[in-house]
């Protein structure tokens, strides 16, 4: 008897939770789950203490829109666009212009593309051209467009144990690091930066797989810079993330300007025809915004005031 009652109670609460959590179509609210009323089965001593703390913070959602379209756009992007602060500049402009609400998931380009592959994102902003082209052949993405570029840099401690400072060729710099067995910190997370780094080693015909000096952080660019700084290790970073955190770290730019260090960002919409739950209109609106003259202008000016140089160079409409 009691067993049944408890299972009923369980079911009711779970059902209530699902009901409370489900956003009404078109108006996904940001409110946390409104908790069901305190059950009568609670002991009188525990009830007031349990209820009094959280309920005062259960404020209702501030904004709800009556419109029928899906307002949330899931943007899957690389850590560099978030860590550099570029998205903090662009997204409010986009949201104000269109009324969409962007959910930025900042992960490595590898994971971002994997999310696109499953239809878990609506639009991608990524910088891993080879992986992107591979992704486009699967048919999950549509309308891949060039947005901007900057460049990668090889950075390391000022003591520069491998003596690569001023080297004009990235491949030769890596060769010197390889020969000196100087500590090199790889992202190791299948991000765009990691993909580029792997291709550099490969093109230089160097095999790092069983080298003890070759270490992997498995984390985002910002975190990897911190670790490299602590270890006095060499690493490869995009210029934007390095500049935006360089006041805090003890690394300096040693190699830059090689053609093979170009870092190119594309925006890719996820095909709503392939994944019915993808917000196709929202993804397209964001992609269109990224290549619009207004956003391109903001991208070109971003960081100039703070760092004395632009962190990204707008490229929309240019040939690849």
């Amino acid at each position, binding site marked *: 008897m*009691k*067993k049944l009652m*408890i299972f009923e*109670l*369980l079911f009711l*609460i779970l059902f209530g*939770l*699902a009901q409370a*959590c*489900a*956003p009404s179509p078109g108006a*996904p609210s*940001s*409110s*946390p*789950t409104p*908790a*069901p009323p*305190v059950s009568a*089965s*609670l*002991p*009188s*001593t*525990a009830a007031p*203490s*349990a*209820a009094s*703390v*959280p*309920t005062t*913070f*259960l*404020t209702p959602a501030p904004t709800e829109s009556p419109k029928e379209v*899906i307002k*949330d756009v899931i943007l899957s992007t690389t*850590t560099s666009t*978030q*860590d550099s602060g570029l998205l*903090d500049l662009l*997204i409010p402009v986009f949201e104000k212009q269109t009324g969409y*609400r962007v*959910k*930025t998931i*900042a992960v490595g380009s590898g994971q971002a593309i994997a999310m696109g592959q*499953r*239809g*878990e994102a609506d639009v991608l902003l990524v910088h891993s051209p080879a992986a992107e082209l591979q992704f486009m052949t699967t048919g999950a993405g549509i309308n891949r467009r060039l947005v901007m570029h900057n460049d990668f840099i090889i950075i390391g401690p000022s003591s520069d144990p491998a003596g690569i400072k001023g080297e004009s060729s990235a491949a030769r710099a890596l060769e010197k690091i390889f020969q000196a067995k100087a500590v090199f910190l790889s992202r190791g997370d299948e991000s765009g930066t990691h993909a580029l780094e792997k291709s550099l080693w490969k093109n230089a015909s160097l095999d790092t797989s069983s080298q003890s000096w070759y270490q992997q952080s498995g*984390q985002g*660019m*910002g*975190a990897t*810079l*911190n670790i490299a700084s602590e270890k006095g290790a060499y690493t490869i970073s995009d210029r934007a993330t390095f500049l*935006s*955190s360089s006041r*805090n*770290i003890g690394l300096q730019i040693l190699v830059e300007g090689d053609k093979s260090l170009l870092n190119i960002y594309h925006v890719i919409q996820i095909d709503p025809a392939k*994944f019915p*739950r993808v917000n196709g209109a929202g993804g397209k609106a964001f992609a269109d915004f990224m290549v619009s003259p207004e956003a391109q202008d903001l991208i070109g000016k971003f960081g100039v005031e703070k760092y004395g140089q632009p962190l990204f160079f707008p490229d929309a409409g240019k040939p690849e």
Partner: protein
Amino acid sequence: MDLIWQGMLEAFRLLIKGDREVIGIMLLSLEVSGAATLLSLLLGIPVGAFLALSNFSGRKLILGMVNTGMGMPPVVAGLLVSILLWRSGPLGFFRLLYTPSAMVIAQFSLAFPIVAGFTMAGIGQINPRLRMQIVALGASRWQMLLLLLREARLPLMAAVMAGFGAVISEVGASMMVGGNIKDQTRVLTTATVMETGKGNFSLAIALSIILLALVFAVNLTLTYIQQKRRPA
């Protein structure tokens, strides 16, 4: 060391100035973890009481599962909830991933076994002769349950504190199912991870200090309630 000092100053500055973003992050942390704790109490206390008082085959197996759940790694909970809530997952039509609701669900799955486990232990340690006495005095099943829960109120309050402490301080699940989205799902722990990644160490320390102060304030309140009602 001066970083910690800077962080403390930064924390005070943010709180006194009433920095809108930080206050928002703080409130969201409290809302999400508070809701998750509340839900886990609603479910965990009945389940814990049932497990403590009943006797059926397979009970030990379930006890073992609850006890394992008390040490559930947040990333595992986060991954499982993510897979359930994916658009391509079984609950995808709710469109819950990357919302505070998703974080409540993930944190609930962490707090529930803790609350159930503490309740189980709390009621289990009550002298069984008390149960017989209550029944002998003519109490109904529900009356007995209420009396037993009242008897176990000290461990029950400990359950509240342990559950809340576990969920407000976890980062793995919140990061995975919430996505650390600015103004939407960014809580104190995920913001700390992000600011550390950005190299803003003093801000990261400030956020940590705010988190610690918050947990301390909540636990102090709960402790006062717990001790006030302490049986003489």
